């Protein structure tokens, strides 16, 4: 498959107070970024169970982006700090197993960083395009009809 033709599907989890607002700001500012992402809004990055991320990979999303408030900005005081530990462990595990680092990415995007949001989306999309379709961990087609 030529990477050029490949349009990955990327799931993003955005915290309501910062990154989702940053995504809104990117739109308000009419900053253009690739259409490959889909969005799940969560109250806080602390809400994200690592299993959500694994589930996305198993479903065949080619990449997952998790974005929350910068350290110190958390609307819920410390949700992102707790999440950061969880994510560090998940990322270590996945990369150790041989899942490409670009598949699951994390960022902090504040409500004022529309520009950063659009750049993050572009970067993640580009990185996943280079990686090609997700094959590892995807649930076998023969046991499930897609």
């Amino acid at each position, binding site marked *: 498959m030529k990477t050029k033709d490949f349009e990955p599907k990327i799931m993003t989890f955005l915290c309501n107070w910062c990154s989702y607002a940053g995504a809104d700001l990117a739109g308000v500012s009419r900053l253009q970024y690739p259409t490959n992402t889909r969005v799940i809004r969560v109250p806080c990055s602390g809400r994200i169970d690592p299993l959500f991320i694994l589930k996305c990979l198993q479903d065949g999303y080619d990449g997952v982006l998790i974005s929350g408030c910068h350290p110190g900005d958390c609307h819920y005081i410390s949700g992102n700090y707790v999440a950061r530990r969880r994510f560090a462990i998940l990322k270590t595990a996945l990369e150790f197993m*041989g899942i490409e680092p670009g598949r699951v990415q994390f960022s902090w995007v504040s409500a004022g960083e529309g520009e950063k949001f659009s750049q993050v989306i572009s970067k993640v999309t580009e990185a996943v395009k280079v990686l090609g379709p997700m094959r590892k961990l995807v649930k076998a087609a023969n046991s499930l009809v897609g």
Partner: protein
Amino acid sequence: MKELVEKIRKIFSDEKLELLIGYTKGTLPLRSTPGLIESADEADKLIFDFTCCNNLAKYLVDEKKRSGNTHRIGIIAKGCDARAVVQLVMEGQFERENVVIIGVPCKGVIDPSKLRKKLNGKEIIKFKVNRDKITLFGKNFELELNKNELFSDSCLSCRYPNAVQYDYFIGEPSEPLGVRDEYASVDEFEQKLPEKRWTYFEKEYSRCIRCYACRNACPMCYCEECFVDRSTPQWIGKGNDLSDTIIFHIVRVLHTAGRCVDCGACAAACPLNIDIRMLGKRIEKEVIERFGFTPGLDFETEPAMATFKENDKEEFIM
């Protein structure tokens, strides 16, 4: 063994124990079986030697679930058992004062799955130990091995062979075996190409039959209902689809991150010799390096995943 039995007998009555969790002789050569005794008279059944591979802390949780948390239980504890007890106390699974930790020096234990691998389908009827060597005798074969070849990988690089927290200690503390550098195999593995690593894990986990022996042998797995067993929503598929199986193993490691005491019980329990420990060991290393936390050493330090520092490293965040 005599010292053990007598001391236990005394502790049993001194501490007014209602139950003691230890080991008794198994039905097969080189195997022991957990022994739960309810009176001092039964103490002479107890043994402690290199066959005592199970992590007994597991039974403390079982016992609490079975009969509440009111009575006093004694437990024979190797280094790893004791660390598991500490971690479980930290997690509120039982009260410290209801557990009497009886430390014993561990010089390494035999991993039954390693033994099976060495025997390649055969079985033994007896064995003989001569210092570091062990000779295995079958119906029509004989096999001499270094003991280390049968010891659990966890033991070979174990840093805490003796109970770190205990109420009694029977015998002289052991020195760590120090046969292997703790993270050498992890580091070496990490040098491989990602594709090779993935292939390795796929190959290992593809043998998994979802018997959950690894989970059930683990002292840290005590959820009322494991996430794999959940329905509405079904967290992961229950068949032996490889992706489901791998997710089970990843999440199990995530759930034991910062809690795993590397007792090796999971690997020893696996009927299919899956390398369950590799991923867990990598995460253990990460928890130590990133958060500076080693589980089960004391009753004060907040477990790694229950806390955070504002300046935790975040180089992985874009």
